[in-house]
């Protein structure tokens, strides 16, 4: 085995195999720097300020919801206002299986994926038949209908009390260590999502998604199978979001629709998306941490008034930064859109 650092390249020779990684020379643009910071943060929190561990978990999970939502928005060319429906679907599926069948998180994860896939496929035709405002309104409606169903069938969903007694995600005996481990798991899921969606948005598949986002009729005339692309871009993110529902379920040990299905939770996710910048996955991570910490700070400073001030601040941010934080960068580098490719003569 031989490891060699060349200019902008890390070369690993393992027997006859050769692996190369390009190193981003500008450290401030190297994603690994930021991944390193995100990994160190929970460790620092564990030693110095363990009470912010739940906020870090929330931040990672918000980002993990916003990242696939960005892909869904780009690939369908429509704004989904009901991503929390899939959180509810995945969460309730995991909770019900865990409580009634005694299944652990590993098995309920498969159930949550299956349920996410089922509802994703079931609702994906909406991206073809409904456009613009109609699509947005319909997607807005689904979680609210689901919430009503949880109240009507209280014997199954336990209404606003919620289901409890769900098998915990991890249990090593210490609450703080549990929180640290869960924080790393949330970070791991978020990073996996970021990696997957980043790879997709840099691939040739993304050119079709970007074309659909701009003008799906022209995209189809240029040979893009718009229906297939939309169904893929709707269903897979739906499954990814359902997995977060599964995570919430096993993380808290209780799951209640009233926490995730109302508009307030949807607003939080959309704000993450907006503040980070639409279809900017790194921006979504920034947005997730921003929203989670803003909420924490406001609760500590303002107590009961915090929800009002929280949404006022977000509204001001939306008005002043219509393209999110990434918009500030884009103003200076207007060519840096996704997917981007430069050729030289």
């Amino acid at each position, binding site marked *: 085995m031989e490891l060699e650092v060349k200019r902008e390249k890390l070369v690993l020779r393992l027997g006859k195999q050769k692996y190369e990684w390009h190193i981003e020379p500008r450290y401030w643009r190297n994603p690994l720097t930021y991944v390193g910071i995100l990994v160190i943060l929970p460790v620092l929190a564990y030693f110095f300020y363990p009470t912010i561990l739940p906020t870090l978990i929330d931040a990672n999970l918000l980002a993990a919801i916003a990242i696939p939502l960005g892909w869904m928005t780009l690939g369908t060319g429509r704004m989904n206002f009901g991503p929390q429906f899939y959180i509810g679907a995945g969460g309730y599926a995991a909770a019900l299986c865990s409580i009634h069948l005694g299944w652990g998180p590993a098995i309920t994860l498969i159930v949550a994926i299956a349920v996410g896939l089922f509802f994703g496929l079931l609702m994906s035709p909406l991206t073809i038949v409904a456009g613009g405002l109609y699509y947005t309104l319909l997607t807005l409606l689904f979680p609210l209908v689901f919430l009503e169903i949880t109240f009507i069938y209280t014997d199954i969903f336990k209404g606003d009390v919620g289901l409890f007694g769900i098998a915990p995600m991890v249990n090593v005996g210490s609450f703080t260590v549990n929180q640290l481990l869960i924080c790393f798991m949330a970070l791991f899921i978020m990073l996996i999502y970021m990696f997957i969606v980043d790879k997709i948005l840099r691939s*040739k598949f993304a*050119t079709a998604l*970007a074309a659909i986002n701009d003008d799906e009729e*022209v995209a189809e005339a240029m*040979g893009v199978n*718009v229906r297939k692309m939309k169904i893929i871009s709707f269903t897979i993110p739906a499954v990814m979001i359902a997995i977060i529902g599964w995570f919430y379920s096993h993380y808290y040990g209780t799951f209640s629709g009233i926490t995730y299905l109302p508009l307030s939770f949807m607003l939080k996710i959309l704000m993450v998306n907006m503040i980070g910048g639409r279809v900017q996955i790194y921006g979504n991570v920034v947005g997730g941490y921003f929203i989670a910490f803003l909420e924490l700070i406001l609760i500590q400073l303002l107590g009961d008034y915090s929800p009002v001030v929280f949404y006022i601040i977000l509204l001001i941010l939306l008005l002043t930064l219509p393209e999110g934080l990434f918009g500030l960068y884009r103003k200076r580098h207007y*060519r840096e*859109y996704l997917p981007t*490719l430069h050729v030289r003569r």
Partner: protein
Amino acid sequence: MNEILNVSNVSKHFGGLMAVDNVSFSIYEGETLGLMGPNGAGKTTLVNLVTGKYLADSGHIHFLGQDITRMAPYKRCKLGISRTYQIPRPFPELTALMSVVVSALYGKDRENQSLEDAATDATHYLEFCGLFSKRNVLCKDLTLYELRGLELARALATTPKLVFVDEVMAGLNPTEAGKAVNLLERAKEEFGVTILWIEHVMAALMKAAQRVVVLHYGKKIAEGLPQDIANDPVVIECYLGSCHV
């Protein structure tokens, strides 16, 4: 010459309006067919029927012997039908290069074609249309003339056999229009495409087209050589009004 496209007895109505009424014509390989008619004659609707945006109410469309009447637009594109739009419809958030890359990637099913391969192809088409220097400019920042060039580059990047050119000269000044006509002629020579050219500017069409089809109120009223069409009293009546006949 081989017949490349055959449109037989195609009709399309929107509510009570008969946009295309029992129209039949053929296009032969390598020719430039002009499609003329006053505003609202049904020219663009006919193109939309052939490219798949609309489905015909009746009649049949055959492309290279294959019935494409009910085929999805993307499949028609992969077969070799491409188009430009009367009012340019760029992908505003994409750069000129990336919008041509979309066509190069999806216009045909090619095995093992990477994004970089498609970019190389796209570069060629951009250079052909004189837009290489604008490759990294967002489409929404291009001028009308550049957008026309981009539309052609995008259409050619799908490696079509038949290109529908919808009023390429609309909104261009005489110099730009002349350049656009030359570009189309070069495209025909270099890429061996067959062109169906919809145009209001009769002079340009008379010069470039081998045959001309004339539509009026959705009906085909004349078909023939450009000089015969120019002298056809029915066509003159449609364009200039009955008092001039």
